[in-house]
C-alpha cells in the first residue's frame, strides 16, 4: 500500500533521488524524511555509541536521528526538501 495519501494534495513534479546509489522516486518539494519513509527506507543511520539503527523520529529538526549526507553535506532528512538528482547517503555519522 502506498503511504502517500491520495486526493488531499496535488504533489509537485515527480523527481528522482539517488539514495546510496539507488534511484528513489519522490515529488519535488517533499521532505526528504517523508520521501524516504514513503519508500520504506526507515533505518537511516546507527547510533554512535551502541551502533543501533535509527530513523526519522521528531520530524522537526530537534532529535537529529535522521542525519544523512545530502550532496556531500550533513543534513537532517526532515529539514531538507527534495529536488531532482539529489544525492543522499545514509549512515552519515562518523
Amino acid at each position, binding site marked *: 500500500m502506498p503511504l502517500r495519501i491520495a486526493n488531499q494534495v496535488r504533489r509537485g513534479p515527480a523527481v528522482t533521488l539517488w539514495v546510496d546509489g539507488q534511484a528513489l522516486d519522490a515529488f519535488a518539494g517533499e*521532505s526528504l524524511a517523508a520521501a524516504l519513509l514513503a519508500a520504506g527506507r526507515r533505518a537511516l543511520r546507527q547510533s554512535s555509541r551502541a551502533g543501533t539503527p535509527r530513523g526519522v523520529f*521528531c520530524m522537526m529538526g530537534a532529535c537529529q536521528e535522521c542525519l544523512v549526507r545530502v550532496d556531500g553535506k550533513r543534513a537532517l532528512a526532515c529539514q531538507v526538501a527534495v529536488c531532482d538528482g539529489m544525492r543522499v547517503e545514509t549512515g552519515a555519522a562518523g
Partner: protein
Amino acid sequence: MTRDPEILILGAGPAGLGAALALATCGVEALIVDSGSAAGGQVYRPLPGAFEPGDASGLGPDYREGERQRRLLADSGAGTAFGRLVWSIGTDLRVDALGPEGPESWRPKGIVAAAGATERVVPFPGWTLPGVMGLAAATILLKSQCVLPGERVLVAGCGPLLFAVANAIRKGGGQVVAVADLAGPGAWLHALPALLGQPRDLLRGASWMARLRAQGVPLLFRHGVREARAAGAGLEVSLGAVDAAGRPIPSASEKTLEADSLVVGHGLIPATEAVRLLGAEVVFDADAGGWVPRLDRDQRSSRAGLYAAGDGAGVRGAAAAFLAGRIAGMTAALDLGRIDAGHHARATAPLRRRLARARRFGRAMARLMAQRPGQVDGIAGDTVVCRCEDVTRAEVEAALERGAADVNQLKSWTRCGMGPCQGRMCGDTVGQIVAARTGSREAAGAWTARAPLRPLGVDALAGDFDYADIPLPAAAPL
C-alpha cells in the same frame, strides 16, 4: 543582511505571527525569523512549495487557518527572514542566524521569543527503533507531507493528539491497530468543563474518539507501551496497564500487537533555550510542560527587552499562542514608546478575555499531556534514556550514586544530554530522574543553554575564507 529591526520575533508559529501583526498595527518595524520556509509553526505548517491543495476538505481546518495566517502576515508589512536558524542570542540582544546566504546577525531593541515546543517521549525499551516516531511528529508527516507513518499504525501516549492522529491515519487510508492512552476516560471527563469553553475543539475531539470507536479501533485507556521490538519489517509492541501516575502495573497482563509503525508521544515541552540563553528567569511548571520563563501579565520576561509567548512560554495551544503573541507585540510597542499605556490597555483588554478562555482550554489539554512522574519512575535500568549517547537509566543512576547532584553535573560525568540533540530528547526525563533524588525539579536544575541552539555545519558557519580573513587576536604571552 536586512537592516536591524526594532523588534525581532523568534518563531513564525501562531505566537510569533500574533506578535508581528500587533507590532505592525503600532507601526513598529518587526522582523520575524524562522528556520522553516514559511510561517505557520507546528500546527499550521504549510504544504511543500510545489504542492497544491487537492480536495481541500481533506486537509482540514488547520490548513485553512494556516493559509489565513500567512495571508495576514504578508499583508501586515512585517519583515520576514525564513530559512534562517537562530543559533545565538547575546545579552546585548544580538541575534545570530545561519541561512542560505551564510551567517547573518541583527541588533534589535527587543526580542519576542516564540520558539514553540518539542515533543516529549518518555523512554521505553525499543523507543529508538526505526519505525517508532513521535505523535506530534506524525502530525507533521500527515498534515504537511500527506504521508502516512505506516500502513498499520499503533498510536500510543497521551493528550489530544492521540485521537487527532489516529483519525487522520484512518482518513488517509491507513489502519490503526489500536490507540493506547495513558489517561483513563475519566481524565477526559475531568477536563470537560474547561473544554466546554472551546466547543468547536471539544466537538472535534469528541467526534474523533466516537468515529474511531465506531470503526472498531480498539481504544485502550490507562495503557502504556511496555516495549517495542523489531519483527520482520515491522514492530511487535507490548502494551500494559498503568496506574494514575503513569507507572506500569507489574501484575497487569501484557497485550502484544503487531504494527508497521508505532507513533507515540507524551506531550510537549516548551522550547526555552533562547530565553535561558539570555539569563531570563525560568520556573518549573509541570502543567505547562516543564520549565517556562517567568512572565508578567504583559508577556515581559525578567530581562528588559525580552518577551515570550506561545507554547515556548508554557504549553497552552495554538489559540492561546496567537493571543499571547498579540499581547507581547503590543507590550513591546508600549515599551518602545510607540503607543501609550491607554492604547495598550484598550488593545489588550479584549485579547486578555479571549486568552483567559483559550488558556483554560489549553491548560486542560496540557494537563492531559503533562509528564507523569510514575512513568519516568517505571523506566527500566537497561533502557536507553539519552538517545544520542546511548546512556541507560542504570548509568544515570550510577552517576547519581557517585555524587552527581544536578542534571549538568550528571551530564559531565555520563555524556547524557551531550549529543547533537543537545539534551532536548532526554532533558525532561533526566530532570525527573534526578528530581527523584534531589526532591524537586528546581533542585535537579535544567541544562545550561548554550550556542549554537541547533547543530551547525562547520562549513556553512565558517564560510569561504583565506587565512587573512581569520580575525586572529594578539598572541598569548610567552
